[in-house]
């Protein structure tokens, strides 16, 4: 990213503690518009916490998170969250809503006209590769894991938010479906030019999707850079993750 690229979200000396124990500490980094920043780390390293600081599900104990140059604490939380798409592991769909109503959730909350909502839902289902005629009326339990995740992405995109937060969205999928969705999502992200913050513990997934990788360890961001830089990073935690890619030793 060139320095002139506008910044979508910025962390300034952010610490978040719970019961006096810091879950993340001293985070300082910008997220540029249009990039796909992958937060990589083990379970409990603070990556999900970092993400939730962006849409104000958590409020920094110290420091501030800027969204569009305004601290999240000064935003109306509802307005802030409606400008940030949110996708979590497959359970996030509302089981008592049809696919159409799930995807149309934010437009309905924003009181769009019914016709406009329907048009948008159909458009989005097409974008994520689900035939609207076939899927609009179904309930989440009638979908496969991969289809549910597509609906989740469509729902997050519904009101066209500039930023998407994704918390291990493909974690529960079988490896083949996962790769398929990763590749499609990467294409989609580049086409739509969304800023994406993506949390994963899967190094392979990080390499497929990343513009930049942020490596988290013990609540701190210990590395931030491009994929190429990550591959050369001497930090033991980076090395530990790269060790998980045995075939790379041969192919690179």
């Amino acid at each position, binding site marked *: 990213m060139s320095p002139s690229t506008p910044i979508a979200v910025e962390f300034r000396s952010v610490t978040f503690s719970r019961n006096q124990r810091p879950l993340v500490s001293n985070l300082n980094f910008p997220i540029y518009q249009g990039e796909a920043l992958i937060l990589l780390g083990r379970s409990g390293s603070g990556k999900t916490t970092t993400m939730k600081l962006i849409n104000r599900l958590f409020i920094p104990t110290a420091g501030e998170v800027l969204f569009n140059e305004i601290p999240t604490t000064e935003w109306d939380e509802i307005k802030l969250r409606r400008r940030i798409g949110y996708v979590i592991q497959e359970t*996030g769909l*509302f089981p*008592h809503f049809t696919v159409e109503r799930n995807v149309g959730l934010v437009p309905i909350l924003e009181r769009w006209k019914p016709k406009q909502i329907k048009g948008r839902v159909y458009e989005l289902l097409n974008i994520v590769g689900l035939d609207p005629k076939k899927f609009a009326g179904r309930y*989440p339990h009638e979908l496969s894991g991969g289809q549910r995740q597509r609906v989740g992405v469509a729902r997050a995109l519904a009101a066209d938010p500039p930023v998407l937060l994704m918390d291990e969205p493909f974690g529960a999928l079988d490896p083949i479906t996962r790769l398929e969705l990763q590749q499609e999502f990467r294409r989609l992200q580049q086409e739509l030019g969304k800023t994406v913050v993506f949390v994963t513990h899967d190094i392979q997934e990080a390499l497929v999707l990343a513009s930049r990788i942020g490596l988290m360890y013990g609540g701190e961001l210990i590395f931030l850079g491009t994929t190429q830089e990550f591959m050369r990073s001497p930090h033991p935690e980076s090395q530990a993750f790269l060790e998980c890619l045995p075939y790379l030793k041969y192919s690179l």
Partner: protein
Amino acid sequence: MKDFFLIKYAPEILEHTLEHLFLVGVAISIAILIGIPLGIWITRQTHFRQPVLAIANIFQTIPSLALFGLLIPVPIIGGIGTVPAIVALTVYSLLPIIRNTYTGITGVDPAIREAGWGMGMTDRQLLFQVEIPLAMTVILAGVRVATVIAIGIATIAAAIGAGGLGVFVFRGISVVNNQLILAGAVPSAIIALVADLAIGWMEQKIKVKS
């Protein structure tokens, strides 16, 4: 055949069944109107959860005959007749309704709640569009338990002159006539079973698959 108790007392059974249904119907309706909002409220104001559930619990442990007796000297809501009977039945019905409302709503998958917040739903929108619909089967199960209990306890309301099927039971006890006791007990049991099945059927109807 004419001496069979259900036939012999048929007109009276009908009359007391209607009284019985009236007592239970009014009491459960009031208990729902108080219990569900109270159950929702303690999911939001968590420090009131303990005291509210404790008080409802204590009500539940008072022996029913004693509660009817205790209400006799109380002004307005007490005395004898229909009003104190409805008050007592309402008090007994509160606990299962409050507790199940609370359990149902706090039992909604945290991921679903978080998805709702994350997408910018207000607390009210989340409550009415997501939490209550998903908790509805559990809330109904509470109403079902409360109803079945209230139908049973309502037979004791006859002791304070509120009528109902208990009239037969008390009369039967005092004149040592089992047929009279059964004329009250059997219809009461049938009402309880039917109510149980009917609310159970409603639960199935609105169950959300996941």
